[in-house]
Structures are given as structure tokens and as C-alpha cells.
């Protein structure tokens, strides 16, 4: 084959990463892995942003990536803080143990 790597390739890769992240959030039972999957989701989007910026020759999407990275860091920091607090009480971070809110 030996063709150029086009925008399409990047978008497919980013779409695949996005779906893997989505599956991770929905299916995994450890909240730590769920948080990792969330990061994967955001980074899939980042990849798409960077690729689009590069191929269309506009800087805006690549600037947007910095916003996303900052926000992802804030979210991760908060999420881990909550997880630590949960672990102190329950000694577990398994999602199916989070069952105190049921009617």
C-alpha cells in the first residue's frame, strides 16, 4: 500500500481510542480504571484536535488542546482525591461496591 497518512487515519485512530475509553468507563469495575478510561476519552479527542489543526493549517484546535489538558488534569486530581476519601471509608474502589444510593 504505502500511502500517505491522511487526516482520515488520525480521525479513525482517535475514534477507536474514544470507543475504547467509552467501553472502559461503561464496563470496568475498578473506579481507578474508569478514571483512566476517562483520560483516554479526552486524549482521543485531543489527538483529533491536533490532527485537524495540522491538516487544515489552523492553529485554533491545537490551542484548544491546552485547555483540554488543563481541564483533564483538574478532573483527575479531583477524582483521585474523592477516590482516596472513598478508600479510607470502604477499603475498596470497586464500582459495584458503591451501592449506598439505591431506593
Amino acid at each position: 500500500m504505502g500511502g500517505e497518512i491522511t487526516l482520515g487515519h488520525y480521525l479513525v485512530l482517535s475514534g477507536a481510542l474514544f470507543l475504547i475509553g467509552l467501553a472502559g468507563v461503561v464496563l470496568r469495575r475498578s473506579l481507578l480504571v474508569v478514571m483512566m478510561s476517562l483520560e483516554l476519552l479526552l486524549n482521543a479527542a485531543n489527538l483529533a484536535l491536533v490532527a485537524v489543526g495540522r491538516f487544515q493549517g489552523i492553529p485554533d484546535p491545537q490551542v484548544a488542546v491546552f485547555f483540554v489538558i488543563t481541564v483533564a488534569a483538574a478532573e483527575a486530581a479531583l477524582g483521585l482525591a474523592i477516590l482516596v476519601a472513598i478508600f479510607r471509608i470502604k477499603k475498596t474502589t470497586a464500582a459495584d461496591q458503591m451501592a449506598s444510593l439505591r431506593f
Partner: protein
Amino acid sequence: MTAWLSPEVLLVLAGVGLILVDSLTPLSWRRLISPLAFVLALGLLFWTPWSSGQSVPDSWRNLFVSDGLSSIFKPFFVLCLVAVTGMSARYRLGTEESVRAEFLALPFFSTAGLCLLASARDFLAVFVALELVSISLYLLVAFHRTKQASLEAGIKLLVMGGLSTGFLVMGIAWLYAAAGTTEFSRLLLEQAGRPVTPALLLAAGLVVTSLAFKIAAVPFHAWAPDVYEGAPTPITAFLAVASKAAGFVLLMRIFGWGAFALESVGTVFRPIFLTMGIATVTLGTLAALPQRNLKRLLAYSGIAHAGYMLLALGTLGEAGMGTVVAYLWAYLFATLPVLIFINEMERNHGNADLRHLDGLARREKGAALGLMLCFLSMAGLPPLVGFSVKLAVFTTLWNAGEMPALVVASLMAVIGLGFYLAPIRAMYWEREADAIPATRLPSFLVWVLLAVGLLNLLLGFYPKPLVALAERSLAPAPLNRQESGR
């Protein structure tokens, strides 16, 4: 008037000020922090209607807009903030009492985010504003670090919020791929007249998915009841009213005037909105029926209300948008008093179980009357305001010729009576259990509940102010005005 006095700037300054006051003053002044926050919020409430109509400074004009919609919803969000700070003052933080200033300051930041969101005209601004709102809320929901329910609610909201963020960012990436810009009016101008591309539809779909999480529309509603129940009640109020309204304001802006307000996109999304609306109304109503916890009941009721608003919005016409504006205000006046009462209930009993309402009417006549009016308004009984706005939704659907949606919505409105009457029955007909004394309220709160309850009645008889608000939000075609202004 300068832009430095815009509500957003003042909200952030007030939040920072609260934290500073808390850390710089002697410990014995700590108990003054709650009244201070409430007074600040109240002051902002009087200031916001004056300042939110002013024009945006030139350097920000590409990101933010000041129009009818934003100037109507900024006071809405600040009003929510007033209620939240007031409720926080009456909320027991237990072991977290030493960080009360943070608990009071974070809603200010979140409200600043909401006000920015109401003004945003670029998806990047939307993204940053939404995250300002969400990240403050994750922290607030999980604020009770020693209470399991609060932490679980926090992590649930964080995971769901993270998903929503992921969808939004992916949507933004695809918008760049499809159109090369994320600014609402430029998107609209560049796409007008062209055949719609799959990439643009994908982008719109991703953005709508992200917002569906925020308004708790089916199938992205599952987090709402759990998070509402676990969160500290003042924060539940913020989530239920302000955060939900923000999602709708944004949907209205992008589908009513900017970004996706295209005929070609509309034809694809109209059936999606209507189907989602029907599903949301149905699930919200049916799932609310067996609830015995007032907070969960309100969560499902909120889901059902979001469904009605989605149906009105789904017609994608001016009438639909106006209806959503009026509906959101009516929802605020009916829901906030109930949450204020739940806050007192939790202070008294530690939970929001429906049986704590038993026999309330005998002890607290005024409060029970106010609450009854609110519940009846939510149920949509005439002559309360809830009826007027539901009627507006049905009229919109009728005029748009959406008969299946109309039939389902009216059926669910009737079934919905069932669960709204449950708390009223408890208040007026049940006997107070000897072991559990009924909830007691301070007398000024009774007056607040009564006043807002009567406001529901008044607006039902005289809905002109709501109609005026709806008209003002639509009046100047906002995007045209900006284009000429640039």
C-alpha cells in the same frame, strides 16, 4: 458602566473574597461567613439585571455575547445562588464545618461559569465555562468527606461529567474538521446554503449527547437520582435547577440561533429531540411513582420536566424556545421551595424520607400550604403556573403537528398527578407518627415558602411577566446584531 462590573467578574471576586475573609479573620468571626455569603449573593441578585444587559467589550466579542437570552438567564442563575447560599447557611456540615467558607465560595465560582455559559458564542468558551461549573460541582457534591453517600454521589457525577466532557471535546474536534471554526455565527454563515456533511452531523450529535447528560435526558439520566440524593441538599438544588437550566440555555442558543440553527441540521435533530423528549417524560414520570424519598422524587420529577422542555425545544421553532424559557422559570419557582424545605427536613431528621411530611399541615399550616401550591404547580394543575407552561408545551406540539408526542405528554401529565399528590396527601391526611415529630421550620422560612407558593398561584392567574420574559429572550435576533456589531 464597565465590563469589570459584569456579574461574572463580581461573582468570582465575591468567591475569592469569601475565602480570603475566612482565612484572614480571627476564628471567632467564622460564624459570620454564612450571612456574608448570603448578603453578597443577594446584592448580586439586585445588581445582575442592571449589568447583564450591557454590551461585551470588543476584545471578548468573539467569545461572548450579551443578548436577550443571556440577560434573562444570568439573574436566573444568581437567584439560584441566593437560594443555595441561604440553604447552605442552614445546612449542617458536620466534620467539614472548618471549611465552610469553601462550601460557600464554590457555588459563586460555579454560578460565574453558568453566567459565562449563558453568554458564550463559541464552543471553546462553552467548554471552559462548562468545566468551571462542573468541577466546582464535583467538589461540592462530594463535600461530606466522611459521608459515604456524598462521596459516591461525587464520584458518580465526576464519571458522568467526565463522559460528558469527552463527548463535548470530541464534538469540538469534529466541528473543526467539518467547518474549521467553533464560533456559532461563523459556523452558521459558512454552512448556510450548503448540503449538510456527515462530519457536521456527527459533531452536532456529540455536542447534543454531552448536553443530554447535563439536562439528565433519557438515556443519559441514570446519574441524577443517585447524585441528587447523595449530595448536600443546597447542592442538590443547584444541580436540579441551575445546572439543568444551563443545558437548556445552551441547547436553545445553538439550535435556535447559532451553530446548528440550520434547516438541514434541524430536520435530522427534530425527530431525535422529540423521541428523547417522549422517552424522558415517560421514564421520569413512571419511575417517580414508587419513590419514597423526596430528593429522589424530585430527581425523577426533574427528569420528567426536562422531557417536557425537550419536547417544546424539539419543535425547533421560536414558539418552542419561548416556551422553554417560561417553563424554566416556572420550574425554578416550583422546585426551589421544595428543596428549601427538604434542607430543613434533613436538618431535623437526617434524611428526606417522605414520611417526615406526615401531618405537617397540622403543625406548619403556612409551610404546608406553600409546599402544596408548589407540588400542584409541578403537577401542572390549573390555575397554577405549572399548568400555564405545560399548556404552552402542548400548544407548541399541537401547532407543530406532533400528535404522538402530544398524546404521550398529556397522558404522562395525568399519571404524574399520582406522585405529586403523594406528598400532599401525607401533609394533609396522614397522622403524625408519635415517634417521629414533624419537621419544624423557623418562621421566616415559612413566610418564604408561603410567598413563593403564592407566587406560583399569582403567575398562574397572571402569566404576563413570564410571557414578557420569553418574548424578550427571543426579541432581537441576536446573531444578526452581533454581525453588524463586528
